[in-house]
């Protein structure tokens, strides 16, 4: 039955979100690296992934959540306010960078919390 502890849909979804924060960090690193490259278009995690994950979490289907693969895509909603066609805005990226790191902290703590509860259940002491 120990298997069920690791296939719980919330636990699987948290792990998936950890992957997403790493991927988004990669996108932000790329965006900030190219903040002054003409015609560079900002990247982000593809919006279709978010919709799929939301659906899978609502259905509480662990195997479906685990099979989802987040991907990077060009952010078409970003508008260029600059003459060089670049769609990166430094301030927005910095905010997203910090937001993403906080999200990552939250998710690592959720995973750690699940493991700590499991340990408590096994040993009877924290």
């Amino acid at each position, binding site marked *: 039955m120990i298997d069920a502890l690791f296939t719980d849909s919330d636990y699987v979804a948290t792990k998936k979100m950890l992957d997403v924060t790493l991927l988004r*960090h990669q*996108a932000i690193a790329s965006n*900030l690296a190219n*903040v002054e490259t003409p015609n*560079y278009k900002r990247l982000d995690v593809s919006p279709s992934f978010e919709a799929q994950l939301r659906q899978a979490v609502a259905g509480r289907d662990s195997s479906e959540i685990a099979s989802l693969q987040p991907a*990077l895509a060009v952010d078409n909603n970003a508008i260029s306010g600059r003459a060089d066609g670049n769609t990166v805005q430094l301030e927005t990226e*910095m905010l997203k*960078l910090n937001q993403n790191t906080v999200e990552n902290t939250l998710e690592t703590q959720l995973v750690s919390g699940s*493991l*700590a509860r499991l340990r408590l259940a096994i040993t009877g002491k924290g």
Partner: protein
Amino acid sequence: MINLLTGIDSTSSALDAERIRMDVIAENIANANVTKDVDGKPYQRQEVVFESMLRAQQDSDAPDAGSQTVQIARVQRDARPPRMVYNPGHPDANAQGMVAMPNINIHEEMVDMIASSRSYEANLAVVKNARAMAMQALSIGRHS
């Protein structure tokens, strides 16, 4: 090879590129009054041209739109004409007493320098955050 610090490729390429840009700006400011460059003409302002490069995908399950690194495509000369200054006593003055000075505007260089150091800082913040995330990942499941 595993990559503990996500996005480090993009960030390191950007730090390298900004460093080179800073070197070019330093060269421009240092040569702002050079009337005789190696070719005998006044020094010409140089500027860097950035271009992005799709990071080579090593793993097969990599996402389609890969993250990009940045590199300096070339360092090109600014074709604007030299600044003409009236200074008949100067050894490089022409018959009318005008001296061709480099086409450098110190204010422009200073603004470029600030922009460059701001992007440098932004990229350092990315590494700092990547490091924080890596440390958190390493502490998953640790006894608190």
